[in-house]
């Protein structure tokens, strides 16, 4: 067997490796630093790593070669297993930004009075001597930083993956750390552990489907590379049934990750149970990564078979939006409500995804669906992250107060916090002058120009429903009187404050002058094949 030495474009992939390296380094620190010094070291290390990677991403993105027709830019790396193109770089940037936000939230120690929101010692049983000891001696799990970095690594790999195997590996790399992170809450351990369990079991289950889909597609195309698969579809070689079933199964896997109906069941439980910081990071990051991957998979690998999967997308998108919006109304817990709203948002994003059109079908200068989805991801991410960050502030002696009734009268208690939260909600509801509106506009446009007006119609109606429960919360905060002593708002350290502030600022900025980011997403261009 002759053997070709593979080549690795370190010069282009280094942001990826930086993140991974930092993660490993984090583990080493964890192993060799005395407990006292870990927190600071880990935080600084993680932040430094992420910022470096971000800069690197910018640099890499700057000198992507533009391909022949100019709509796409970039090249395949790692023997064609990774695609380094505009969208990839864009998504890398986004993920890294959210990751930075995540680190800031993770590092918040002031709310819990000197300790982080993570379990003093996950292995110690709640209510046992060991645990009491752990919490009294101010232990906390600094492992969360390396874990998160690994997740980030996966999130960066996921949208870049250009063959099914890499896709799968990336999927797991990003999921596994999240499973663990979900179970590490300091307060309400049982809930948190339960969330982890559910997330894990369902996640593993779905990844099983995903994998089987890969196997079938491989059976169909005889290759794992997206390009080759696309070719196989175009030339219609291989057994079409394999293709269809495989496609379906892959879709199941991805739909699960993005929490699209009917695979959204885990979302509320996990979002509620997980430590809010983790929820914030997860909600933003996972969606970005997963949608990036979904776009690439369906546009590049199954692009020439659009007419097969678009109908499926239609159904799923509609279902997701309806389920998300309707179930959200019934929620009495802020985190759950946000979770369901994120389901609804998944639906909107899918609306954008199914707006896939080939460049020839579009007028020059018209918004592409890729552009739309990328932009929506940015807006959604910032809004969600900010919103969850705010949730961490509203608390009482028992920790965070996520039950809505306890939020009544927040507007009087702390106008600022309430205002910011209301702002985020309005953004999610898609009120003009917030980023949410532009995002909605973009994805709807994509879908509409692809002739999916029924979906858009449903989307519009569901956003009305969604608006209802957002508004209800606002009303709760402003116009109803607090029950009991009312909610009290803890004063965050600068870390959380910054996260919230940036989130709000960006949400406003993107609502008023979305131009730059839109153009950036436009410049990112199409996926390379």
């Amino acid at each position: 067997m002759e053997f070709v030495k593979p080549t690795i474009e370190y010069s282009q992939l280094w942001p990826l490796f930086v993140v991974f390296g930092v993660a490993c380094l984090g583990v080493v620190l964890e192993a060799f630093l005395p407990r006292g010094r870990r927190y600071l070291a880990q935080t600084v290390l993680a932040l430094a790593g992420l910022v470096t990677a971000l800069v690197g991403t910018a640099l890499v993105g700057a000198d992507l070669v533009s391909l022949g027709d100019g709509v796409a830019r970039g090249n395949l790396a790692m023997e064609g297993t990774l695609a380094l193109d505009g969208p990839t770089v864009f998504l890398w940037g986004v993920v890294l930004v959210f990751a930075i936000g995540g680190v800031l939230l993770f590092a918040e120690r002031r709310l819990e009075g000197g300790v982080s929101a993570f379990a003093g010692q996950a292995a110690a049983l709640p209510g046992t001597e060991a645990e009491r000891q752990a919490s009294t001696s101010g232990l906390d799990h600094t492992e969360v930083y390396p874990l998160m970095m690994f997740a980030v690594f996966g999130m960066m790999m996921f949208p870049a993956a250009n063959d099914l195997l890499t896709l799968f590996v990336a999927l797991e790399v990003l999921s596994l750390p999240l499973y663990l992170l979900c179970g590490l809450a300091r307060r309400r351990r049982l809930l948190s552990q339960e969330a982890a369990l559910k997330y894990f079991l369902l996640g593993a289950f779905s990844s099983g489907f995903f994998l089987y889909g890969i196997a079938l597609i491989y059976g169909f195309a005889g290759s794992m590379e997206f390009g080759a698969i696309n070719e196989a579809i175009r030339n219609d070689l291989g057994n079409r049934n394999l293709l269809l079933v495989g496609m379906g199964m892959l879709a199941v896997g991805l739909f699960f990750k993005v929490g699209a109906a009917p695979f959204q069941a885990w979302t509320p439980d996990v979002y509620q149970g997980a430590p809010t910081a983790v929820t914030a990071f997860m909600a933003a990051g996972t969606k970005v990564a997963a949608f990036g991957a979904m776009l690439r998979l369906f546009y590049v690998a199954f692009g020439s078979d659009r007419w097969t999967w678009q109908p499926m997308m239609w159904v799923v998108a509609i279902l997701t939006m309806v389920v998300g919006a309707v179930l959200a109304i019934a929620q009495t817990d802020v985190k759950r409500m946000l979770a369901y709203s994120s389901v609804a948002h998944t639906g909107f994003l899918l609306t954008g995804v199914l707006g896939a059109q080939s460049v020839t079908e579009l007028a020059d200068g018209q918004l592409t669906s890729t552009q739309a989805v990328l932009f929506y991801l940015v807006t959604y991410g910032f809004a969600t992250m900010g919103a969850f960050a705010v949730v961490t502030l509203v608390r009482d002696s028992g920790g965070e107060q996520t039950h809505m009734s306890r939020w009544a009268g927040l507007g009087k208690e702390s106008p600022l916090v309430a205002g910011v939260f209301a702002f985020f909600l309005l953004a999610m509801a898609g009120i003009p002058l917030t980023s949410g509106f532009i995002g909605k506009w973009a994805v709807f446009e994509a879908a509409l120009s692809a002739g999916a007006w029924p979906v858009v119609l449903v989307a519009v109606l569901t956003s009305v429903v969604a608006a209802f429960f957002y508004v209800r919360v606002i009303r709760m905060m402003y116009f109803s009187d607090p029950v009991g002593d009312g909610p009290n708002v803890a004063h965050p350290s600068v870390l959380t404050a910054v996260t919230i502030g940036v989130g709000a600022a960006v949400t406003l900025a993107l609502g008023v002058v979305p131009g730059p980011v839109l153009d950036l997403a436009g410049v990112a261009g199409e996926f390379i094949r």
Partner: protein
Amino acid sequence: MELYTPVLVLGLLAAGFAVFSVVISAVVGPKRYNRAKLDSYECGIEPTPQPLGGGRFPIKYFITAMMFIVFDIEIIFLYPWAVHFDAMQLFGLVEMVLFIATVFVAYAYVWRRGGLDWD
């Protein structure tokens, strides 16, 4: 497949022998019932009842098992690498060093956290 059939033959042979001896001992051996004899051995005292499913054992074993998996996987990757080392040479070396180093990180962590200490 030809290469594997002989293995099958030998396997069958062994299986035959094993089963045979299990059966034969059951047949040949004497049968004298005695309650105490059928109890599980515990230094002659009343045996502690076994919980269903074998009860629970220390986490140590879990850790060990996990470590084993990790390293076994590493080995799985090392073997083909080793066999085709000559083809890759330096590249292979560097990559594998990185790989080993990565695994080592985890290993070091477990070590430091007392994962390898049996008390």
